[in-house]
């Protein structure tokens, strides 16, 4: 397949990234699953009304599954259910996993992430990462309530163009570990980026601040954050419809367009 040439754009990419506004509000997620809720409920009702053949039981099963998918709005809620089910009062943790491929060489992507100061530009739940010394940094995250939570983290592994891994130091309010790994693909023209971040409350009673933070971090948002990063690295801008005309009130964005941004 034909490939296309790239002009170097690390600097433009970074400049563009710095233009990304941080969102102040925690976006709600009343997602558009009404199609499957309606369809699923209808199937369920249809199967229930007839209820006399194996196919009707299948309808009911399929309907329930569809409606559940609709109501559960993706893995997000599945995860919350899992959290509820596993909840012990002390070990309620959040694990975030997101991956995507960026059509830029690995050293360009790596050098961006290597500079931890850049992390808050990409990850909207992270407010600041201050470098204390070569291996230690201070992380601050913003809670939906506006309160901040911070801890110190240490780089535990760093391999040029491959991996950056960190872990919070002992005694932090919250346990945090994570890594970003980089893998060149398509003869080095593109890079697979894999991000894993784990947040775990300390042993003992979980305070309201930490509980509120853990509830606000979701991997759907982190995936959107990575997507924005990819868009800026590849296209130099994030696609938007904010401010375009419609017959709604002046410059009002679509309801659905506001869900994630």
């Amino acid at each position: 397949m034909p490939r296309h040439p790239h002009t170097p754009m690390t600097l433009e990419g970074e400049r563009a990234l710095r233009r990304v506004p941080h969102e102040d509000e925690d976006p709600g997620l009343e997602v558009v699953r009404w199609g499957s809720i309606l369809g699923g409920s209808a199937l369920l009702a249809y199967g229930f009304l007839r209820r006399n053949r194996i196919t009707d039981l299948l309808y009911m099963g399929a309907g329930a599954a569809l409606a559940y998918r609709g109501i559960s709005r993706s893995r997000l809620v599945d995860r919350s259910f899992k959290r509820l089910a596993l909840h012990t009062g002390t070990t309620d943790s959040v694990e975030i996993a997101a991956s995507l491929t960026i059509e830029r060489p690995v050293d360009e992507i790596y050098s961006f992430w290597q500079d931890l100061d850049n992390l808050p530009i990409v990850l909207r739940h992270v407010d600041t990462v201050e470098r204390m010394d070569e291996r230690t940094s201070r992380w601050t995250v913003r809670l939906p309530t506006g309160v901040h939570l911070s801890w110190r983290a240490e780089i535990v592994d760093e391999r040029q163009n491959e991996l950056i891994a960190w872990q919070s130091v002992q005694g932090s309010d919250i346990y945090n570990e994570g890594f970003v790994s980089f893998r060149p693909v398509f003869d080095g023209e593109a890079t697979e980026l894999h991000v894993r971040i784990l947040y775990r409350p300390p042993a003992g009673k979980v305070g309201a601040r930490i509980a509120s933070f853990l509830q606000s971090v979701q991997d759907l948002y982190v995936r959107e954050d990575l997507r924005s990063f990819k868009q800026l690295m590849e296209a130099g801008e994030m696609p938007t419809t904010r401010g375009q005309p419609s017959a709604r009130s002046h410059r009002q964005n679509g309801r659905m367009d506001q869900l994630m941004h």
Partner: protein
Amino acid sequence: MKAICWFGKEDIRVEDVPDPEILNPRDAIVQVSRTAICGSDLHLYDGYIPTMERGDILGHEFVGTIVEVGQEVQNLSAGDRVVVPFPIACGRCHYCGDQSHALCDNSNPNAWMAEQAFGYSPAGIFGYSHLYGGYAGGQAEYVRVPFADVGPTIIPDGVTDEQALMLADVFPTGYQAADVAGFEPGSVVAVWGCGPVGLFAIKSAYLLGAHRVIAIDHLPERLDKARSQAGAEVLNFEEDPILDALRELTGGRGPDVCIEAVGMEAHGGGITDWYDKAKQTLRLESGRPHALRQAIMACGKGGTVVIPGVFGGLLDKIPMGAAFSKGLTFKMGQTHVHRYMDTLLDTVKNGDVDPAFIISHRVPLIEGPAAYRMFQHKTDNCLKVVMTT
């Protein structure tokens, strides 16, 4: 400015809305001179595409003049006459690099929503629901065009606005259907649907080396057009038993390529039509895939079924056993308009095809709502409506 806006099923209105503005460095603003209603706009009009919102501006086929460009757009300037491909593409991602612009990674601001529906997100499209990006469309006096350094193409002298307008969607869509089929000498092609896309698929099939093309529809004027202007043999599905007729016409082999240029609102007749209509109305099924089922059943062994017709969600009773047993290949998807633009502009400029032959009605933009109604009911032999601003 005036714009045609969607307010609900069979409820579209001409509204006064604010003029668009440059929002990103790679944007441009186009003053629209001509804009067309696409058959796929009728799926929006009929309320079968989810994630539309009241007040959305419709339209993905338009040509016009550049009036303003963003700071990153170097290749266009005010006054350029351009045709704009209906998919929005960044030009720099993996898929754009492979000329698959309708699969662009970076042009759908609501990619997360499309991922919920499809697993992965296709490109954004002008005026075609929030699932496809929620972009304001071009059935308006002005339109904002994102990634304008990649999409809009300058219309060469000797090609009219109306001719170029057919290159925003319907001509390349028909052309892609024929192109991806991969004809061999002697290939026989059957085309379901003689609307604009079907007619261009017939023309393109001959351009690309098909031996014979058989066209299927039920509207006499469309069949007539397929025969007289595109050179197809024609079958009327209300009169001819299609499967038997195709078998007969191909010496018992069946067509090598079956092109389904109908999509989610097919008319077929008979009991399955009622079944599909009922399920589609209850939103238990997203389409009425009558033509698709027939195309699969009709296709000869080892053949290819190409689907330029638009489908959105879930379909029932697709004869996968037939497809599997006959070793069929399926090709489908939105059109990579950017891929074909230069080739087709040349085709028009050389006089090989005059794509304006499908235009049946020319009306001012303010008569858009009535034109939608006419197109929906196919009254007055309506085949393609072009609106002037």
